[in-house]
């Protein structure tokens, strides 16, 4: 009898595994939190997109809750999410762009064509800041609190739904 009970452990173990599989079906392996969550925005020094001579560094992000959006002219999803970013800026949220792996000319053209929600754009042609942010594809959006700490990370396209359900609540939370 004891042996039979022991053998019954087999289907039980398997069912446990199947339960994990079931959960796995609704998990998206490509959705990962940024490794920089709850850490300070990386130090950097760069010029801005519009003005070669203006130097900015991480202190740019201190003092106010800021949304940092990493974008590039070459990225189609960046174009699609522009209306949402403009809406966020209209809501009085401070927006800073990181022009990632791009040229000044193309970046400026992009902004004039699709609108410019950004207070300032950090020019990052070699992707150095992007690398330190752990960005592996644009667009990516980071929420930085008033102390310059990264509080929220959104990978990929920001849909109107994301704005309502994720980003605005997060901004409220950290304000």
């Amino acid at each position, binding site marked *: 009898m004891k042996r039979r009970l022991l053998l019954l452990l087999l289907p039980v173990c398997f069912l446990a595994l199947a339960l994990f599989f079931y959960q796995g079906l609704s998990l998206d392996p490509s959705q*990962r939190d940024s*490794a*920089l969550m709850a850490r300070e925005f990386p130090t950097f020094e760069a010029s801005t997109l519009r003005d070669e001579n203006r130097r900015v560094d991480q202190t740019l992000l201190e003092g106010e809750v800021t949304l940092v959006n990493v974008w590039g002219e070459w990225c189609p999803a960046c174009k699609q999410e522009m209306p949402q970013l403009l809406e966020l800026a209209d809501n009085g949220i401070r927006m800073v762009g990181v022009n990632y*792996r791009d040229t000044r000319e193309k970046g400026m053209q992009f902004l004039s064509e699709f609108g410019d929600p950004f207070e300032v754009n950090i020019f990052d042609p070699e992707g150095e800041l992007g690398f330190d942010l*752990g960005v*592996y*594809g644009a667009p990516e959006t980071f929420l930085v609190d008033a102390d310059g700490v990264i509080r929220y990370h959104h990978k990929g396209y920001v849909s109107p739904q994301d704005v309502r359900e994720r980003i605005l609540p997060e901004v409220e939370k950290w304000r």
Partner: protein
Amino acid sequence: MALMRTMAALLLLVIAFGAAAGGIELREFDDPVMEKRYHDLTASMRCPLCENQAINDSDAPISADMRERVYQLLQEGQSDIEIINHMVQRFGEYILYNPRLESRTYLLWGLPIALVLLGAMVVVLMIRARRNASAKALSAEERQRIDALTNRKRSS
């Protein structure tokens, strides 16, 4: 929605498969040891963008950036651990194909080793039990006869 999913799947395919034969770069190394370290490091880091490829196998731009960074850090004289930490700080534990030993991976590393020990125990216990079984059940003479029979049949 279905269309979006198909598109996404297609994109992933392009990313994953278009990447074939990635990372052919011309690099100079001071010595073969460093070259080997470069190979081992880039082979053990996972491309964060692709489906499942090491950065030395992948064509994704981020993999090229990461290889370049590994190379730079090696040139700067950093140790393997420092380089790994540098990458994990930016891209997370996810990129390590060789997960670090920590509380959540104890089972991953421990279970196979535990199983080897358990297996050894099972073998010892079973054989001891069986050995007695055969000793009790048969006399030496019978055993010899059966021995001869089974082994003859096998080679026939």
